[in-house]
């Protein structure tokens, strides 16, 4: 994480200068994405501790946090968990497309082409699964699979009561 910026007090004040503010937003984007990747955090709430740096006693004001999150969403780096309340987002530190290719590569490398692969296999907690995808949120995983279906590379398998269970590549 770019610690120099994160320990820079003005980083926690909304900058009135437009160019500086845009730069500040993009720095916040990097900080959040890196943080999520390193801590394997798929969801981020607007009260997450990332928005407070106790070491320099600075924290981002609530209204500014919303601006940062909306900026993430508009840059397709995150999606609102609930677009009405807008209190939490899913973090795409890798885009859905990148995750899709990773799944395909994993399926290839484990020779499971053509067989049915359940969500659990891909990202189950204690299953080897796709590297770095362990514990991915089901909604996010669902969206990644849609990408594959959309690309015609896989079909979604449903169990008896119709909720999606796995993929067939």
């Amino acid at each position, binding site marked *: 994480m770019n610690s120099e910026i994160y320990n820079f*007090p003005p980083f*926690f004040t909304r900058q009135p200068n437009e160019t500086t503010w845009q730069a500040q937003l993009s*720095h916040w984007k990097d900080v959040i994405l890196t943080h999520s990747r390193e801590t394997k955090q798929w969801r981020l709430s607007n009260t997450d501790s990332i928005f407070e740096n106790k070491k320099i006693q600075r924290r981002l004001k609530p209204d500014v946090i919303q601006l940062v999150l909306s900026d993430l969403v508009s840059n397709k780096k995150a999606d609102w968990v609930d677009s009405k309340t807008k209190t939490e987002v899913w973090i795409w530190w890798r885009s859905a497309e990148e995750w899709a290719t990773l799944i395909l590569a994993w399926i290839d490398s484990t020779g499971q082409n053509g067989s049915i692969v359940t969500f659990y296999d891909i990202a189950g907690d204690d299953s080897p699964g796709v590297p770095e995808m362990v514990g991915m949120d089901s909604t996010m995983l669902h969206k990644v699979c849609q990408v594959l279906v959309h690309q015609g590379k896989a079909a979604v398998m449903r169990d008896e009561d119709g909720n999606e269970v796995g993929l067939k590549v």
Partner: protein
Amino acid sequence: MWTIPELNNSLRPVLFNNESDVIVTDHVGLYENKQKVPNFQNGRIYLTSERLIYVDKDSPKKFTISIPLKAVSEVEHSGGFYLKTSPKITCFLKPEETSSSKDSGHHAVDTTWICTICFMSNTLKSWREGNEIPKCSMCGVKPSIDIIDNAVKATKDSSKMTKKKATVETNECPRCTFKNHPSMLNCEMCGAVIKAIQAQTVRCLIPNNSPVVAFRLSFRKGGDKLFLEKLTSCINKEAVSRTSEGSRDSKENSRDASVTPGLSGLQLSGQQRLSANDSLMESALVDLQALMTQGKQVLTLAKSFQSLIEAEGGTSTTITVSSSFDAADSLSEDVFYQELSRDLSEFLHSGVLDKEGGIISLFDLYALYNRSRGYSLVSPNDLYKACAQMESLGLPVKMRRYKNGFLAVQEKFKTNDALTKQLISWIKTVDASNTKGVSTLGVCSKFKWSVGVAEEELQYAEEKGLLCRDEHVTGLRYFVNIMCT
């Protein structure tokens, strides 16, 4: 007869010690005898208590001239209403001024010559070429002509030499003999004028037009009647004051000779002081003239009360600079603003601008300037208009408008970016690690700016992306912007 006056950096004539402005009118042209003086056809004419000064509009530094009121014998107004030409005021010059046109080469000189017979040194009063050769006062023998000539030449050389030596090396002050730096105009110790500015005198403006019998002022945009009225009153006053000069003896008020010691002394000196105060108040406050003449004594009396008041805890507002500019309603609209603008520039350069760190907000300038005037205050609108013209008048100061509408006045040569560079480099030295930033108060104490000016300068740097801000409960601080790299 014409002298070239000195202009200060706001292109206004530098007034002598007790000289004061009376009136100024622009769009005036100058005539010598009957002819128009080229290059002197569009300028401002200042009437002061002692001089008439013409300052050209286009090239003030080159075409500026002045003439003492003493030289003018009478004044006449002509033209204007039925003639198509603009109204004029003709000033006739005193005869004897014009007649001293003799070649100054061998004007009268006092010399001493030594008699070759009895070696008696005889002094010779104002000897001229053709005079008859004097006899020696002791032995009555007439010396030869060349002895007299050598003596005359010797005294002339020595006087010229001593005068030159005196001014070049020591520049000694006539009043307190303090040896000033040669370039000093006023003595550092007592402020007396050492070198009357070598006012080159010019015999006539138009080549070989002498003797100059009169000169004429042509008023292209009016204002002549008022100017005439003020000019005639000045000339009459000038005449009156010259006759009474002899009688005004400045008697030094003698300190009471004996100081009786001890308690009775205490009582006595106290009584004396009180009665002296009473009599002074009695006589001084009778009418304006009395107060004028005894002004100094009354001022010292007032000052003596000052310490008493301070002991009482009251505040006595000390007025720093008094501005002699008079917003008399006699000035036309734009001349008023020009003169106000120039006066503001002079006021700022009397140390006020330095004290404010080179930039002063229009609010603070308004308060300080009106405080220094004390009476007939200028309105905010007048001050704004005057400041707005500073740059176009070529004054050393200019008005600056910040982005959010904040107005200030600063030195002309200082560019905005130069100020910002200065600010940034200071912040970098004070907070090299860029971890604590600077507060507005810190900037104020460093640059001697007011809080308002400091905030504007910081925001200006922020708008340029050089600084960024940190809003925290402890207050607002500014850091060097590292987010944009």
